[in-house]
């Protein structure tokens, strides 16, 4: 018994895995001993599950609570910084799936810490903002609060994950959350469509990345990110893996050619856009690139791919941002552009450039979320985000306008901001000592897009807050004071950080300094080349803004279709749908014959190919045992072929019967009387059942299939036949050991039986018999089920009289004649009418349907037949016979009663519900199987008694006979069910049909 052991092990293991959570598992003696990060993630999870309930209690104030928690975690991460800078990283690890070495392992190093601070800081600010942005009546507020909060946790987990499987897990969860959040306004078709688009596009990349991660993990033998980076693999497999991972990163961070989903995602509520689609989620791709770049920057595919896509993206994004009327879309395209910039910069992986990129990343998170939140305020106050309807807001909301301008200054990269310092640093580096071809290309790309960035930043301020005389001033209908807090703080931070940049070198340069030496940050490096670049960029940016009409006209003339990925997306989606319809329709053509054909053809191909591979056809084999065998075979083959081409159903049925009787004959010639007898009886019963059914069907077989299919069908049929014959010959000739059948004879004697077949059925393999009689019960049930319910929704079959419930009505049909039939007015219970009849219900039939001879014969034969069947049942263990054969004989006896005098006669012959017969039979057989267990024996063990019976003589009675009795009853029950369903019930339908017509 292995099960209990497993059970114990299962629970002990489960217990262990829970315990592990509370045990110190940090390697290398890192300063934090507990699983603090895992605990934080768990609290995030728990709290987000609770959020819907809290929302019910607190309404929108729940955001305050959530913001406080996130801010708390933010502060906690700050307190970890000294330890991280001292030791390099904090790591935690809990085993998850040992077999594949997946572990819940988290690691916070400098890069993770910076990312965490960004994610948590902006998260707290956005949650705070939500308190004022949403009203208590917002539909789906609980769902939104829960998802947004959980998202912060998942994002935190993502940037500290140190296992590729965990990383991917959190990566995909952010995708799903993003899907749900973009679709927040479920009533809007656009927002639903955009949600699905974002889901699919990011998942395409995500799955490619998964394959890449699997590839690189197998290549390095570890799923740990640290481990992979330490191994620093190279080679073709690594190149492919990196390309796949890049696909994931660029789809998540909306780089070309996936840049189109991000503007679509602006259908989400503005705080969501600010957080997911500006500050946090879209940075996941940037983070991944930043994570891998120091190790893989030298890889031949890395920089060229990322820089190309990054540069295209930053240009396309900025170009489009310049064209937008919707302020939010302007920012979204700007985000796309900046993401391209960040990925390009991080891709180089050198210390100074990495530090520059880090500055851009932090700065972008601050100013972009601030600007989004500002747009949210404008939207709420004026009811629009289209600048063509806005004017004079600068005067009406001066504070907001001021801080938004500061944020825009950050966006434009004008001093004294972090992004200015970042760009300067980048320029200095790529034209400096380590200048490279890709560095120069990147420089040009960055400079060009920076010009556009300056232009769209200016345009944003002008559009949002400028005064345009020609438009009527919008009315403000919302207070915004409190909701302004978050954007103000975020935008102020961007400026403050720029001014105090030297003090922040430790933090912002911490990641870069793990790669190599970096210099202290400063705003002012003196007059040098980078400063000149910046001056030129700002000048041209200003000019493009000033001459915006000309620029716009130019933009309208130039439209590059290749960058219009939205159209490509829809083409792919539609193409997929189209393809799927074509494939599916093709495979369905022809329906059932095609399905069967597919199976048979597969078989033929499988058989032919394996035989051709070298299973040698035996040179010598016996073609037949005796001539009659061959003759029978030929007859059967002929009958089978004729059955296949027969035009009348009944002919086909009879011809199929011939093949069955032929088999019986072969059994008989092989000295297997039991099998022969069984086969003959089964064949007869089948024939009866067929005839009962066929009489209600059109006599001719419909010619559905076209003649053109014929050769193919013949080919398949002949092919299958030849295949199976060949296989059989090869298989039989390869036999090396004796059949276990030869040992069964002595075994049967041991089991006190001389009839091996019966001993096999009721003793040696009685378990098979148990199964097969269950099949018979199921079949009987099924036949009844089909015939007695013709329409699930329509009327019930019409009944004779007073039956109160379905069961009684259905089961009772046979017993009680339909008094209103046109055929008979007689009731079988009418004493006078039945007294003299040979068969009690004979009078219920129309005279033209009756045959006196048949009735007399049946009357004479029926009872002896029943007795014979019982005899066969009892002697089965030693002589040909047994429960199955006996049951079939009895069943045929009932059949004759029915055939001779119709359905009332059947009811009279077997005045018992067939389901009871079936049930009793199954109970007896199953009982014989189970009862021995109570006496310490095995199931189906047999007990024997010897005694003498008057007529039968010396009896040798075993419990196997009880088992066989069960079999007998089930066969009889099945026959009765067939007769009353396919016989009586079909009769009744027919009669009702005739009445209905007349």
């Amino acid at each position, binding site marked *: 018994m292995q099960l209990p052991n497993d059970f114990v092990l299962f629970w002990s293991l489960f217990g262990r895995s829970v315990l592990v959570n509370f045990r110190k598992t940090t390697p290398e003696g890192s300063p934090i001993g507990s699983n603090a990060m895992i605990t934080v993630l768990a609290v995030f999870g728990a709290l987000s599950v609770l959020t819907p309930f809290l929302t019910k209690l607190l309404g929108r104030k729940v955001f305050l609570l959530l913001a406080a928690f996130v801010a708390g975690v933010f502060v906690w991460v700050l307190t970890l910084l000294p330890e991280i800078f001292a030791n390099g990283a904090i790591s935690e690890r809990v085993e998850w799936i040992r077999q594949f070495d997946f572990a819940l392992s988290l690691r916070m190093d400098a890069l993770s810490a910076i990312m965490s601070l960004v994610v948590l800081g902006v998260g707290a600010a956005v949650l705070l903002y939500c308190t004022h942005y949403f009203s208590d009546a917002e539909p789906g507020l609980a769902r939104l609060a829960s998802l947004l909060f959980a998202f912060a946790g998942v994002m935190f987990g993502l940037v500290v994950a140190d296992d590729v499987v965990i990383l991917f897990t959190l990566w995909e969860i952010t995708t799903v959350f993003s899907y749900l959040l973009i679709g927040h306004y479920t009533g809007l078709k656009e927002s639903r469509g955009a949600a699905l688009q974002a889901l699919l596009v990011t998942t395409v990349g995500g799955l490619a990345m998964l394959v890449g991660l699997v590839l690189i993990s197998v290549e390095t033998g570890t799923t740990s990110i640290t481990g992979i980076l330490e191994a620093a693999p190279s080679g073709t497999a690594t190149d492919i893996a990196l390309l796949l991972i890049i696909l994931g990163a660029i789809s998540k961070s909306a780089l070309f050619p996936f840049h189109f989903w991000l503007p679509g995602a602006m259908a989400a509520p503005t705080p969501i856009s600010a957080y997911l689609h500006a500050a946090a989620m879209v940075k996941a791709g940037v983070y991944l690139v930043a994570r891998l770049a120091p190790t893989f920057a030298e890889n031949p595919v890395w920089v060229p791919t990322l820089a190309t896509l990054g540069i295209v993206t930053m240009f396309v994004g900025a170009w489009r941002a310049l064209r937008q009327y919707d302020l939010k879309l302007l920012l979204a395209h700007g985000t796309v552009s900046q993401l391209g910039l960040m990925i390009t910069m991080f891709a180089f992986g050198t210390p100074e450039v990495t530090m520059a990129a880090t500055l851009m990343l932090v700065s972008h998170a601050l100013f972009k979320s601030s600007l989004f939140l500002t747009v949210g305020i404008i939207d709420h106050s004026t009811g629009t985000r289209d600048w063509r309807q806005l004017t004079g807001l600068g005067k009406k909301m001066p504070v907001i306008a001021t801080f938004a301008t500061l944020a825009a200054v950050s966006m434009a990269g004008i001093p004294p901001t972090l992004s200015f310092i970042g760009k300067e640093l980048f320029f200095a580096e790529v034209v400096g000592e380590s200048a490279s071809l890709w560095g120069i290309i990147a420089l040009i790309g960055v400079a060009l897009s920076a010009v556009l960035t300056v232009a769209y930043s200016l345009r944003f301020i002008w559009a949002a807050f400028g005064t345009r005389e020609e438009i009527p001033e919008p009315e403000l209908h919302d207070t915004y004071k409190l909701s302004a807090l978050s954007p103000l703080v975020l935008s102020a931070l961007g400026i403050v950080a720029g001014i105090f940049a030297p003090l922040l070198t430790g933090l912002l340069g911490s990641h870069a300094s793990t790669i190599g030496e970096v210099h202290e940050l400063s705003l002012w490096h003196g007059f040098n080349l980078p400063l000149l670049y910046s001056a030129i960029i700002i000048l041209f940016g200003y000019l493009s803004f000033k001459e915006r009409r000309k620029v716009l006209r130019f933009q309208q003339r130039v439209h590059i279709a290749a960058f219009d990925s939205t159209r490509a997306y829809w083409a792919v989606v539609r193409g997929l749908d189209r393809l799927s319809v074509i494939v599916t329709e093709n495979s369905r053509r022809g329906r059932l014959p095609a399905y069967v054909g597919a199976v048979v053809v597969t078989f033929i191909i499988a058989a032919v190919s394996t035989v051709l591979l070298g299973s040698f056809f035996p040179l010598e084999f016996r073609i037949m045992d005796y001539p009659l065998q061959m003759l029978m075979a030929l007859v059967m083959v002929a009958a089978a072929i004729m059955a296949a081409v027969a035009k009348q159903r009944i002919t086909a049925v009879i011809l199929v019967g011939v093949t069955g009787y032929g088999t019986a004959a072969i059994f008989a010639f092989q000295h297997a009387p039991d099998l022969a007898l069984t086969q003959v009886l089964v064949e007869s019963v089948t024939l009866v059942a067929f005839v009962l059914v066929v009489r209600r069907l059109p006599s001719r077989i419909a010619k559905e299939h076209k003649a053109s299919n014929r050769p193919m069908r013949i080919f398949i049929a002949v092919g299958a036949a030849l295949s199976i014959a060949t296989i059989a010959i090869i298989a039989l000739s390869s036999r090396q050991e004796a059949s276990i059948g030869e040992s069964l004879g002595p075994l049967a004697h041991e089991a006190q039986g001389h009839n091996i077949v019966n001993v096999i059925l009721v003793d040696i393999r009685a378990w098979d018999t148990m199964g097969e009689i269950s099949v018979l019960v199921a079949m009987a049930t099924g036949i009844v089920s089909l015939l007695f319910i013709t329409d*699930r929704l329509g009327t019930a079959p019409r009944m004779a009289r007073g039956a109160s419930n379905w069961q009684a009505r259905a089961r009772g049909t046979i017993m009680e004649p339909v008094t209103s039939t046109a055929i008979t007015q007689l009731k079988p219970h009418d004493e006078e009418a039945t007294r003299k009849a040979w068969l009690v219900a004979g009078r219920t039939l129309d005279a033209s349907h009756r045959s006196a001879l048949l009735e007399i014969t049946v009357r004479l034969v029926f009872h002896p037949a029943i007795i014979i069947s019982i005899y066969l049942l009892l002697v089965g263990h030693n002589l040909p016979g047994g429960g199955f054969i006996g049951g079939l004989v009895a069943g045929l006896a009932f059949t004759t009663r029915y055939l001779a005098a119709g359905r009332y006669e059947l009811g009279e012959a077997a005045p018992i519900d067939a389901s009871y017969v079936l049930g009793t039979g199954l109970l007896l057989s199953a009982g014989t199987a189970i009862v021995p267990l109570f006496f310490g024996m095995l199931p189906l063990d047999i007990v024997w008694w010897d005694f003498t019976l008057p007529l039968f003589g010396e009896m040798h009675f075993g419990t196997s006979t009880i088992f066989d009795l069960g079999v007998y009853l089930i066969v009889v029950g099945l026959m009765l069910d067939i007769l009353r369903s396919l016989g009586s019930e079909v009769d009744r339908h027919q009669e009702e049909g005739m009445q209905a017509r007349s």
Partner: protein
Amino acid sequence: MPPFGIVLYVDRLSAIMLVISSVVLLGVLLYSVGQGIADGDKDTPLSIFHPAYLILAAGLFDAFVAGDLFNMYVGFEMLLAASFVLLTLGGIGPRIRSGVNYVVISLVSSVFFLAAIAIIFGATGTVNIAQIAERIAGLDFNTQLMLHTVLLVGFAVKAAVWPMSFWLPESYPTAPAPITAVFAGLLTKVGIYAIIRTETVLFPGGALQVPLMVVAGMTLIVGILGALAQADIKRLLSFTLVSHIGYMVFGIAVGTTQADAAVIYYVAHHILVQTTLFLVAGLIERVGGTTSITKLGGLLASAPVIAMLYFIPAMNLGGIPPLSGFLGKVSLFFSGAEVGGWLIWTVIGLGALTSLLTLYALARIWNMVFWRGAEEVADYESPLIDQLQEAEEDDGRVVTKEVPKLMIGATSVLVVATVSLTIFAGPLFDLADRASGQLDQTTYISNVFPDYSNAGQVGDD
């Protein structure tokens, strides 16, 4: 004493199959009682559901414990006979039509299985699986290959492996939801179980790895394309069912102990999640009156609980981590990648693509059925749905009924079960690993014949 009589063989794999099947069978039974398709309801008057359902269960269990090829066939026959009855329950036209498809295909596959047993008996003189395994090793390699192929064809039809899978989506969806659910969850897995035994005990060595890989890939992709074309949720789910069989075949084809462990986990996942989703489809049919996504709408507002019950298993089937569908897939990918080779990587690629398309099909349902407002449904135009094919038996009627608590309850329990596959993934993979560790031929034979040693022969006791 073996090899005479019938050997029943329960190792960890069988035990896992038995436990999962019991859970699913019980859940679906409760759901059916809730729905009222069990006996006593006016739609199904006769005592048909319970006996047929129990025989189906008995057949399943027997197939999972059979240590005898013929007895396994008997188990198959039991569950097939019962499934014929259940599929045609109520006897309405579409059910009879799909029932005919199903019965014919099932019988064809049974004929092949039976023929395979006969041929194997011809070659080895026994039907005891352990003894066949032992004797077959002595046959010529090509003869082994031949027997192997013939046996697999029979099982592959049951498991709905391409190109023998087209019948399934034509048969299953018309049955009442809980019946489809139990068929979808369990019946194909009997085929998978049998294929696992074939590849590990009877014909170890992965002689058919390449063809299995090819059909695994084709099963995945052809199946999921079928799902994309469907408007009817039940038909769509039937196609995803077929498609995801490909993952299991892939794992079996990889054939390492690690891959087998992943397959076992995946089987457990797939049984639970497919069953659950079909039950949810039944709930949707109940509240929405139809299962066509072109006609449904506004269910997020009108039935938020059902929305939850749909979303979790749908994301699971769509392979979203950390749910079990993802864990199963990624562990299959990893075990395949360990072996490597362009064919395996191609199938991994197809697997990832299938995962994406599954997500697309299921998210589209979410978009249309749950998000879209009920008032938008009329005259709705969207490129997302304009090419979908309605089910043929869909008569356009929308008949809604209230949803009994028991149906919701039973479905919720199964949803929780699918999620717990993730929560207990560690211990479950441990179990699956130990189960796959004892799948090998030697263990099997020596468990049946205790005095068997690799070199020796079995005595004729």
